[in-house]
């Protein structure tokens, strides 16, 4: 869009106004006189405190009056003055003050005449009705409820549902740490010693030696000064982003960001902008244009994107962050334990010093066989979070078995880095075979998350159910998790998947997809 103040072929210049300084009383008297004129009323019947609405002035005359006011005052005014301001008094006051408020003064607060049942009976609430409607739609497919299906036993490359075993692609137990005897034993030992809960906030008497050991282990593994663990991965993002940033700040996030990041952004009250997926150049443009309007700026990206399985170009983002003096946060939920030779994540993958990123975030439920999330970074940042982050301070500390399981998983990973290599090799095989068959794997690359994009929502549900019948468990994803036109099946590969399982799966997938097309 181009902005020009030039007027093509302008023979005459538009109306010019001379600035005049006119008092409130003068404006009031003028308004009274004009209104009386337009309504054919004697001046003494115009009440300056009476609502403009009550004068039944037609809308053309109301807007036109603002135009006459413009000539009288010698400056441009909003055409909707008589709708935005309640009466002559208020309008004259505003015009004399020459202060333009952010928003017009609302004249009347509307109140609902009665309190509808949907406001106090949840079953009748529109949100719940909407959910029921969606459930009916899925039910109408006649394929049963695909949600909340109970899985018996440990889930890895296989899972048991009811009494049937399936090849499983629905778990992010990437490194087979969950169910590993070493990890389970650590958790059991912790229960024996501390019981099953921390029983208090860590700040106030909930702290255990295990917690300190865990946070040290995470910081060491990632290569930062310190770390803090939260009891939920989702809560880690919400609480950290929501707490650290505020009104005069800007948060710029990738358009494919996880819900926990968005929730944190909303909570913060900062200005929020999305940049196109992985487009650091666009981010650079946005910040070039806007950086100066804000105090702090946070850039949030993810190591591996959980719906598409691709990796953020971290080195470029670091350059942009440095150029614009911004904070950079990387969510490693799906990349920690997965990327890099030793599973140390995206920094190791790109060979970058961890200190280039201000906030490392990750979850403990994927590669680390537990529950919760962490933030790793400078000691100052972590110290501040430990004393003030609401989701940490006002929450129970991580349960001892959960803490112990994570410590054991990190230890085991350092002992057996080959788990990472096998995972990478299996994921690569899956992707390669899928691509050879011409399946749409989107932008997935170098990651254990491989989507098979089918487009239509219904198609993804049907394909998932067909594979299920053939003994393969893989969930579908559709809008709003992914864009409306790119519904998909999402495959999580783990290091336990065998080559044979993968080949069999790709064969089945190719056949079922071909059937769907017919």
């Amino acid at each position: 869009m181009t902005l020009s103040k030039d007027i093509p072929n302008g023979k005459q210049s538009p109306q010019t106004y001379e600035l005049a300084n006119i008092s409130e009383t003068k404006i009031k008297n003028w308004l009274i006189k004009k209104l009386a004129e337009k309504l054919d009323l004697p001046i003494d019947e115009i009440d300056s405190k009476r609502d403009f609405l009550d004068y039944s002035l037609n809308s053309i005359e109301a807007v036109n009056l603002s135009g006459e006011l413009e000539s009288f005052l010698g400056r441009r005014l909003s055409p909707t003055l008589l709708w935005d301001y309640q009466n002559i008094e208020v309008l004259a006051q505003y015009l004399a003050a020459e202060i333009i408020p952010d928003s017009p003064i609302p004249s009347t607060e509307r109140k609902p005449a009665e309190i509808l049942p949907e406001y106090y009976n949840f079953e009748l609430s529109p949100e719940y009705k909407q959910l029921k409607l969606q459930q009916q739609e899925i039910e109408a497919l006649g394929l049963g409820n695909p949600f909340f299906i109970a899985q018996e036993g440990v889930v890895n490359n296989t899972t048991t549902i009811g009494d049937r075993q399936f090849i499983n692609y629905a778990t992010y137990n990437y490194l087979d740490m969950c169910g590993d005897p070493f990890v389970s034993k650590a958790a059991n030992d912790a229960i024996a010693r501390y019981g099953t809960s921390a029983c208090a906030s860590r700040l106030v008497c909930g702290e255990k030696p295990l917690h300190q050991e865990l946070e040290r282990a995470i910081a060491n593994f990632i290569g930062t000064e310190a770390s803090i663990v939260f009891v939920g991965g989702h809560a880690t993002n919400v609480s950290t982003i929501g707490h650290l940033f505020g009104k005069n700040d800007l948060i710029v996030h990738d358009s494919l960001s996880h819900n926990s990041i968005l929730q944190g952004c909303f909570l913060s009250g900062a200005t929020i902008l999305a940049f196109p997926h992985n487009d650091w150049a666009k981010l650079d443009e946005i910040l070039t244009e806007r950086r100066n309007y804000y105090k702090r700026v946070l850039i949030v990206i993810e190591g591996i994107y959980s719906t598409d399985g691709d990796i953020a170009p971290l080195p470029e983002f670091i350059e942009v962050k440095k150029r614009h003096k911004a904070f950079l946060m990387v969510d490693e939920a799906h990349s920690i334990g997965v990327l890099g030779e030793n599973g140390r994540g995206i920094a190791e993958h790109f060979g970058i010093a961890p200190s280039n990123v201000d906030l490392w975030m990750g979850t403990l439920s994927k590669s680390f066989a537990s529950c919760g999330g962490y933030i790793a970074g400078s000691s100052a940042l972590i110290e501040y979070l430990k004393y003030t982050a609401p989701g940490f301070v006002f929450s129970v500390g991580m349960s001892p078995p959960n803490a112990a399981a994570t410590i054991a998983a990190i230890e085991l990973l350092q002992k057996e880095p080959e788990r990472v290599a096998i995972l990478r090799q299996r994921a690569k095989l899956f992707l390669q075979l899928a691509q050879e068959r011409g399946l749409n794997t989107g932008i997935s690359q170098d990651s254990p998350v491989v989507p098979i994009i089918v487009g239509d929502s219904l198609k993804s549900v049907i394909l998932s159910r067909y594979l299920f019948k053939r003994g393969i468990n893989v969930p579908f994803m559709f809008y709003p998790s992914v864009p409306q036109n790119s519904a998909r099946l999402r495959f999580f590969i783990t290091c336990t998947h065998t080559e044979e399982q993968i080949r069999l799966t790709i064969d089945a997938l190719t056949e079922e997809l071909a059937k769907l097309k017919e």
Partner: protein
Amino acid sequence: MNFPEKNLNLDTLVDLVSYRAESQPEQTAYTFLVDGEKEAISLTYGELEILAKTIAAQLQAVCRPGDRALLLYPPGLEYIAAFFGCLFAGIVAIPAYPPKPNRSIVRIQRIIANAGVEIALTTNSVKTNLERCYTYAPELKNLQLLISDRPLSQQPSQWQKPKLDGNSLAFLQYTSGSTAEPKGVAIAHDNLLHNLAAIYRCFQHSRTSKGVIWLPPYHDMGLIGGVLQPLYGGFPVTLMSPLMFLQNPLRWLQAISRFQATTSGGPSFAYDLCVRKIRPTQLEDLDLSRWQVAFNGAEPVDYKAIQAFSEYFAPTGFRPEAFYPCYGMAESTLLIAGGSCQEPVKTQTIQASELQFDRATIGKIEDGQKVRHLVSCGSSIPDQTIIIVDPQKLTQRTEGEVGEIWVKGPSVARGYWQDREKTKQNFAAYLADRQDGPFLRTGDLGFILNGELFCTGRLKDMIIINGRNYYPQDIEKTVEQNHPEIRPHCSAVFSYPIAGDEKLAIAVEIERSYHRAQKNPANSTKEILSTEELIKSIRKVIFVYHELQVHTTLLLKPGSIPKTPSGKIKRYATRASFLDGSLEAIE
């Protein structure tokens, strides 16, 4: 489809935008005068296509083709980009007035419910207004908002061309009927292309045309005539908000003068407003000599207003033959009939008494006879049939007979969204004797003389008593002319049934001065009629001039009679208020 250049086959408006963006990427498509005067922003065809694709890509990520999206924008380039964004995504656009602070949003709520809208495109500032409504309209919270004046996360390259053809719906035009439920006229791409071709031809547009438009871009005339027609013809248009025009009507004519516009227009009231509000000293700098098509439509064309405007603005070089009266409605996309350019406006003087018998008798007018001056709306656009039909018997009437105007042709819309009943009633009318159809029933009354269409009134306003037709405007005029106590243009005549018979009612607003004098007779120097005497007098003149018995006379306070934003009487709404008892007569 006949296209101005070459014999291009375009099926949709998406093709049209892409064609313009390819063949004239650098040409300015739209210029918007932000303040109605100096500050101008503009958009080229190339930029328009990129914006449309970006917004479309954003929509495609969250909507399915065929979904409806509400457009809540102030007039401007963002609105235009969002409109085309919807078309590019295969989403059915619904233009609507954005919510005003302190004003009811019932209309928006009804549209959302009627069209099953789940997403709205809007600007950041409108969003704030919308959020203020959440306390009393909580269902708005469920509306997903796409804020298009902020950076969008999708890129134009992510746009996927949807499968569209002429049959695909482009947008829903909600009509501002006085009845409670808004009706969404479903307009398909082929309706648009047909009507755009017709306008291009009738208005004699060319690549050298230039438009200036202040009409609200949410309605057929502003959107199709003001935004889509320039795109169709590949000529530039300068736009401004209707508020800028109403605030100071001089801005409209200044823009025409400054941008040397050849085509511009509006309803009759706009011309009238210019005459009333623009001072003779302000004419000096205006040059209206290049104005070739001064279209005048959307409400009955008032011959007096045309004459007054032509005379008043003669010093600016305005040519009376530029006036272009036309007739149309959203149900038929936009234009149904229009005159021929370069020719003076055609008029017809007819005997008012003959209209009672559905006859438009011309002949000799004797002294003292009641007459009506009617302005011709021209003839039918190409490939379309207009017939005049007896609204009760549904049989065709002949030349010079008055009846309901029926239309059949490719510009007639698909029907009302999700309203089979009303669609059948209005869009699928058949002649009783010939089974010819389906026709669109316009609800307007008129006649055809020498191939020219004349409109005489609204069918639903028509009063039929004892088999005779009465036009309410004739009776209102009689009453107003004979009673200085009654405000001019502030009376409504209608009929209502009592025990199976139609009875006449008249509601009039009395002058404030009369009302005051009534309350304090002591203050008045003149003798004043009592209200009983006034009512008696009204009954008398109506009987004398029209031989009609008045059953009910209501004297109302000023401002009581419902009117359109441009000040036209809403007779049907007045009747409805009367019947539900909400019209308050003064003591």
